[in-house]
């Protein structure tokens, strides 16, 4: 029984990391006032770039950085359209998702079925020996440990530093932030590109560590789930981590039932559960929120800024 729970928890942790990175990045972008619905596209291209950089260099660090860089590059396109050209951010994000899906499918054909770089599990010395906890959290790949660091760090920067204050100020009231000398454009560009790097990192995690190798549509909607988790988390990194874990748990149950051959719930029902649960979570969060969903969201989300008004 305990062994089963440990197994499920370990898979849950492992399955939540991509959503976790992507949601963290999207929180930064949205906190600065830029809605980026292109997460799915950035994750897909990041996943492909990770595989491509990995097979070119054979170095897992360079592979990961490759995924992040390409994710950031796509986010730069969105930033240019959303911030500089002041277009409708919903449409720009959707365009990015469509473009990213197409790019990854087109350029990825050369990598289908090819052996790819595989990140090895690296148990953390000492911590791995803690009963249960060690098995769940500290016998993972290095990118999972990176999530343990980046999420609290992301929360700390956002809420405890001057930079975080500027990001939040720009997302709440860009004109006031501008009046006190904050460079709105730079903060928004930076946050959006950081969001893209995180989405690319999430994608690279999928293609390097979680299920190594390139498969078309490898993310299966995790980018969209990440966006939903941002709302669930009311734009807080730590709560997004919790949301991602919930997603991971539902995914893990699927594997557990498949691995043990116990089919209490049909497998296709289990496959739909992460999506349905995400919708359910959105419903709960909206019903609990008395301010009709506007209270928690950054006030200037999706609104372009210009001095001329």
């Amino acid at each position, binding site marked *: 029984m305990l062994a089963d729970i440990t197994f499920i928890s370990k898979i849950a942790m492992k399955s939540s990391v991509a959503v976790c990175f992507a949601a963290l990045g999207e929180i930064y972008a949205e906190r600065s006032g830029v809605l980026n619905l292109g997460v799915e596209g950035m994750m897909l291209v990041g996943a492909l770039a990770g595989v491509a950089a990995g097979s070119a260099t054979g170095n897992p660090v360079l592979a990961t950085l490759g995924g992040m860089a390409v994710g950031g590059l796509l986010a730069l396109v969105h930033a240019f*359209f959303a911030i500089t050209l002041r277009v409708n951010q919903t449409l720009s994000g959707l365009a990015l998702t*469509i473009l990213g899906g197409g790019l990854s499918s087109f350029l990825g054909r050369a990598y289908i079925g090819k052996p790819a770089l595989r990140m090895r599990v690296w148990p953390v010395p000492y911590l791995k020996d803690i009963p249960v906890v060690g098995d769940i959290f500290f016998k993972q790949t290095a990118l999972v440990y990176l999530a343990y660091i980046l999420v609290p760090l992301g929360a700390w920067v956002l809420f405890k530093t001057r930079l975080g204050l500027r990001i939040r100020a720009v997302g709440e009231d860009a004109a006031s932030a501008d009046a006190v000398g904050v460079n709105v454009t730079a903060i928004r560009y930076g946050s959006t590109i950081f969001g893209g790097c995180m989405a690319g990192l999430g994608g690279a995690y999928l293609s390097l560590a979680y299920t190594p190798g390139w498969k078309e549509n490898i993310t299966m909607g995790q980018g969209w789930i990440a966006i939903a988790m941002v709302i669930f988390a009311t734009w807080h990194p730590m709560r997004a981590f919790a949301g991602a874990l919930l997603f991971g748990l539902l995914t893990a149950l699927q594997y557990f039932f498949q691995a043990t051959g116990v089919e209490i719930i049909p497998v296709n029902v289990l496959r739909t559960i992460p999506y349905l649960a995400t919708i359910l979570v959105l419903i709960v969060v909206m019903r609990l929120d008395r301010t009709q969903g506007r209270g928690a969201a950054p006030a200037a989300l999706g609104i372009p800024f210009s001095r001329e008004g």
Partner: protein
Amino acid sequence: MFILTKRHDRLRHQGIITASVALGTAVIAGAIVMAAYGANPVAAYAAMIRGALGSGFGLAEVVVKAIPLTLTGLAVALCATMLLWNIGCEGQFVMGGIGAAGAVMYLAPVLPSALLLPAVILCGALCGAFWAFIPAFLRVWGNVSEILTTLLLNYVAIILMEHLYFGPWRDPEGMGFPGTPLFPPAAMLPRFGETRIHLGILLAALLVFALHALLARSKWGFSIRIIGNGPRAAAYAGLNVPRQTLLVMAASGALAGLAGMCEAAAIHYRLQEGFASGYGYDGIIVACLAALQPRLIPACALLLGVFIVGGEQLATTMQLPASISRILEGALLFGFLLSETLGRYHIRLARPTNRT
């Protein structure tokens, strides 16, 4: 960097500028990607154009693709007119196919064959409407973002379809090939001559006219356009926004469902692998390019049809992935957004001394 100032005059030749900027962006972006892949863009574009427009077969296939694209484009445009984002047309399209196949499975034995096709059409539309009604209800009742719910339900619909054709609806004579049984002739939408162009083209044309008339001339259309002007305008006019949300989303889902029904009953004649091929997502681009105007949608659908058929031809003649069409579509939407900015603002480069 760039400084944007509001335009107070209207850009002249806006239509031509929009079309050329959007197409130009798509063509340039596609060329860069093809060159990066190691293909000659000029040869590839020539092959695409020859494949899509150079033969009677190609032209007919463009029309075949334009039928579902017109329907999903209408579906997105109808919602977007009242500021609702239905990006779940893919799922509603799949549900339309499921409705059609379900009608064949369960109604074919009991209905007289003359009534079977109307039943197939109706079931397709109803299933699509039902699938869009769920996010509409959640939006009205719980203020849940319809963008996310419509999209997430796409995955659910696709899993449901796979479950059906791998499981309970699988063709026992399919020789291990997953798919539902072939539709009987009475459930097939008739095709014209040797082409795959089917009766759905009349359905699509009829709906284009109907929606144009409804949106431009009817009281209902007027109220939708007022709601599209923002919540304050709607409140001032005393309109029942929740009821219109439910109605418009359901109608939109029915349109996407009809697209799926057409694909099932006129192209594949069954549900099978590859049924969900992205027409729902393409509808977003069609609707945007048409500036949400029903009368412009068929032309935009034909353009995307050229991309898709051209991409398929590219796959057979030059062994390049057909997904080039998707890259072109994404870039096309970016180009369209760029042209909107050009129409709205004067753009000039900032002098280096200015802080932007």
